[in-house]
């Protein structure tokens, strides 16, 4: 029995919890009635389940006739479907506060992904394509040095998570903008690191492009709307006080 994937999942949960704790001290989603931690965990489980089902169907394995296979997560999880299901769960569970919840979880989600990627250390799964760079690593007994690509991804996601958390705390971003930024960062990091990963297939690059583009476009629109509404407010002359009737 192998527990290295479980370790990676625990690393992800720990990083997510730590980010939520750190942000809570800085007023993250302070007026939100829902527990961000509960929403995050539910979204992660739903995403994992849907992603696993999608991977099984994609491999031609019927989940109904092979239900026990569903729990063999190492057999593969379809990243794109998993992400869609997780995002959908957040938006549904958030109810009327869905964008507050999504924004509240944005940095924590990136931190959780960073933790998940760093879990490669427990299963000797950090290495990618061969490289001559000074920090390239070789697996035991091998002369081939390789990019520690999962650690690159973990570092970039951690930087993104921290930057987003600081922006949320200090920058007063418009509603939905942190969630859009998180989507763009997650997609962007996968696009940057994917060429350094070894895989049997080209990987679901379409999903990564979709996440990056949707997140970036949404972010630009939200920031532009905030800017134009601020400019409009500033340009509107203050209401003239009513002239008081003379004696």
């Amino acid at each position, binding site marked *: *029995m*192998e527990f290295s994937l479980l370790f990676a999942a625990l690393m992800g949960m720990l990083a997510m919890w730590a980010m939520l704790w750190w942000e809570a001290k800085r007023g993250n989603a302070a007026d939100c009635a829902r527990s961000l931690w509960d929403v995050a965990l539910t979204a992660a489980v739903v995403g994992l389940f849907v992603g696993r089902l999608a991977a099984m169907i994609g491999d*031609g*394995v019927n989940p109904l*006739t092979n239900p026990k296979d569903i729990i*063999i997560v190492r*057999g*593969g999880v379809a990243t794109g479907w998993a992400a869609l299901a997780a995002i959908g769960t957040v938006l549904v569970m958030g109810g009327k506060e869905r964008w507050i919840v999504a924004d509240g979880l944005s940095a924590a989600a990136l931190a959780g992904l960073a933790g998940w990627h760093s879990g490669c250390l427990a299963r000797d799964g950090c290495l990618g394509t061969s490289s001559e760079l000074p920090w390239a690593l070789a697996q035991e007994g091998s002369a*081939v040095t390789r990019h520690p690509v999962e650690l690159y991804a973990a570092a970039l996601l951690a930087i993104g998570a921290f930057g987003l958390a600081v922006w949320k705390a200090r920058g007063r971003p418009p509603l939905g903008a942190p969630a859009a930024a998180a989507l763009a960062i997650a997609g962007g990091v996968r696009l940057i690191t994917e060429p350094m990963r*070894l895989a049997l297939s080209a990987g679901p690059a379409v999903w990564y492009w979709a996440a990056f583009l949707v997140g970036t476009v949404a972010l630009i629109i939200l920031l532009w709307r905030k800017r134009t509404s601020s400019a409009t407010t500033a340009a509107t002359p203050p209401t003239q006080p009513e002239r008081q009737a003379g004696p």
Partner: protein
Amino acid sequence: MFIVILAAVLAACGGSDVDVSDVPELPPVTGDEMMAILAASEQPVVLNVWASWCIPCRSEAPLLERAADQFAGEVTFIGVNVRDGQSGAREFIAEFFPDAPIDHYLDRPGDVPIALGGNTGVPLTFFYAPHGELVQLHSGVIDERTLALQIDEILARTG
């Protein structure tokens, strides 16, 4: 409603009935014979130890099939069925490896993986450089990244 639709979609994905008529009987193999096969191989070899009753083996089978198709001509793929019978093994092959270029053998007592330096667990995946030099032994279900990495390693040691 969602669950009903999901169940209908999943049910349409395929049934459990498999036709084993196209799957030949698996030749029996011993540890010494397998070591001779590996030593004679000019190509790197991925050797997967599996059983039809092994649930994790089922989950990694599609991945191995894809890898065998992708690296056909560069890497030899061998499957060793252990502690199993012909009928179970053939049904498994018909369901999960119908057209994959994998040479399957039957090792009813389960001696081959022990002779190769492995253990009694399944699944196991051995990665060999040409002429039987063991590069890596992976115990348990293998994931895509690990499989791709180890295939890259054994290809790097070729010629």
